């Protein structure tokens, strides 16, 4: 890129002596950018600021808003009398548990899958295609498949356990408050692991083979090679994958929405689910806007970091 740029730069000096204040190709450049800018401003930037404006109002679906300053935020964060305060604290707890569980699970399964796929195995292509499959079908379809597997009446998980004589009564995978979030996590890990396997596998393949050979000659054990060669070389891949996956996992609501709908009793109500239920069922658009906005700073930080990294990698 930089070389190409330098070349073009030089050519332009030679052919076009008069430089424009906005740059050499300013007219064509702005003309080409304009449609995308319209989308970004009209469908992303404007809604984002509109969301902030909504969060400062007492506004119901179909009603007229009334400006109330930071009351919605106060209610969510500090008002111990408001029911929504408890719901919000609960959603913070559930979101953290859900994200951490999902990240740990996807990391472990993804790492094991990638290490095996990177080894000398037969029919590698077949196994790779197979292990990436969950990611290629719509998430909603996976969510319903898992819902049927977990079903208490004719779900295959309960039937199999009963037939094996391990349980007498069906386990309420999705309806018991203690179990629900773990059941959802299993399904979410199933769907999200392939992305981790993919990035880990690509990362593993970029580690020079010579490093392992050298370590082998020096008498390093497998565990040592893994700890001192594989992990350090994968560290940046792990960091970026964790961040991307955190953003996507938190904000994808399909699995929770379909499997438990936030229940039982809020046990799986992450903050996007709280926003959906406040907006679409309680019709309170002010609160529903404020909830995701309170989480936005964390995402903005991660996105800022990722943006810098991705643009640097591109250059």
């Amino acid at each position, binding site marked *: 890129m930089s070389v190409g*740029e330098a070349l*073009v730069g030089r050519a332009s000096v030679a052919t076009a002596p008069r430089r424009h204040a906005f740059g050499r190709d300013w007219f064509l450049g702005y003309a080409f950018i304009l449609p995308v800018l319209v989308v970004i401003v009209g469908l992303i930037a404007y809604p984002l600021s509109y969301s902030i404006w909504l969060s400062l109002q007492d506004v119901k679906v179909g009603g007229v808003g009334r400006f109330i300053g930071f009351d919605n935020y106060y209610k969510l964060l500090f008002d111990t009398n408001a029911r929504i305060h408890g719901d919000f604290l609960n959603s913070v707890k559930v979101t953290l548990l859900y994200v951490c569980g999902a990240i740990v699970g996807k990391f472990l399964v993804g790492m094991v899958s990638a290490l095996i796929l990177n080894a000398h195995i037969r029919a590698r292509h077949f196994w790779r295609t197979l292990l990436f499959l969950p990611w290629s079908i719509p998430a909603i379809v996976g969510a319903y498949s898992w819902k049927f597997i977990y079903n208490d009446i004719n779900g295959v998980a309960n039937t199999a356990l009963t037939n094996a004589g391990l349980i007498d009564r069906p386990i309420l995978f999705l309806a018991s408050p203690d179990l629900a979030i773990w059941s959802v996590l299993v399904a979410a890990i199933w769907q999200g692991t392939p992305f981790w396997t993919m990035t880990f596998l690509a990362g593993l393949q970029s580690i020079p083979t010579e490093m392992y050979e050298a370590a082998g000659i020096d008498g390093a054990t497998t565990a040592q090679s893994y700890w001192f060669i594989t992990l350090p070389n994968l560290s940046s891949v792990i960091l970026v994958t964790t961040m991307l996956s955190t953003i996507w996992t938190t904000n994808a609501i399909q699995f929770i929405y379909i499997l438990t709908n936030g229940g039982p009793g809020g046990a799986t109500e992450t903050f996007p689910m709280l926003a959906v239920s406040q907006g679409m069922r309680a019709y309170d658009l002010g609160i529903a806007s404020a909830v995701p906005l309170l989480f936005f700073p964390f995402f903005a930080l991660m996105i800022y970091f990722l943006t810098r990294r991705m643009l640097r990698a591109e250059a």
Partner: protein
Amino acid sequence: MADVTMGARSMAPARSIPVWSWLASKNRGYYLAGYAILAVLGFWTIFPFYWQVATSLRSDVDLYTPVVSLIPTSLTLEHYGKVFSPNSQLPTQLRNSMLVATGAAVVSVILGSLAGYALTRLSFFGRAGIARILVFAYLAPGTILFIPLYVMMSNLGLRDTLLGVTLAHLTFSVPFATWMLMGYFKTIPIELEEAAMMDGASRPTILWRIVLPLAAPAVVVVAVFAFTLSWNEFLYALVLLQSRDKMTAPIGLTAYAVGDVTYWGQMMAAATIMSIPPLLLYLFGQRWVIAGWTAGAVKS
């Protein structure tokens, strides 16, 4: 999509860490353990999908017995018959999904090609800033936008319309397409354009005669990606669409659960049908798909 080809090449050859083979030579046990883990992973991966297809092929009698056999005893297409019967909404919903996803994909690649080219090849004030905003928009989560988009679409009279959902899908597919195409434009040798410029070709001629033919394959790949993203989208479609004949296929799936009763057979039949387009894309375009998705994460 420079990375696409590069990633694809690095994934394709059967290169592997010698640690494993070196271990295997010492001890075959590692090999066996490896295959055992692989078998478990394979089972865990394929089972929900297998169960979905198997369920769609069982009769209702077979489905609601307490004794469930892993392999369906009698296969039937009755559920597929039902989801495609004249009073079923599935055909309409598949058509809706097709329209929305095609619209989003076409608009995204057109806008993305123009912007991607400008951001990589033209020099103008504010270029770096715009590139940064684009990546930011690409990663910005939809949970922040769905409430304001819902209110906006209601005010514009676009709630419960396919146009409204298509516009909502542009929020992720346009930044996505632009970002992917930016990567690709960087791989086209700039010398081709310079040579044409020396020969006196104008910018539009260069674009039309040189850049576009070279970019065509990438544009197709990105269009197909954008199509799948939109085809699978759930949140925006869920909050924007209410009428059953306006729903996209993923939202239509929720209608097979009525109160406490779920029509599992029909639901799984519909689910299997709507999995086919993304599945075909994955099976035939695997190397681009994988390389494209890992591009941003892996490069250091």
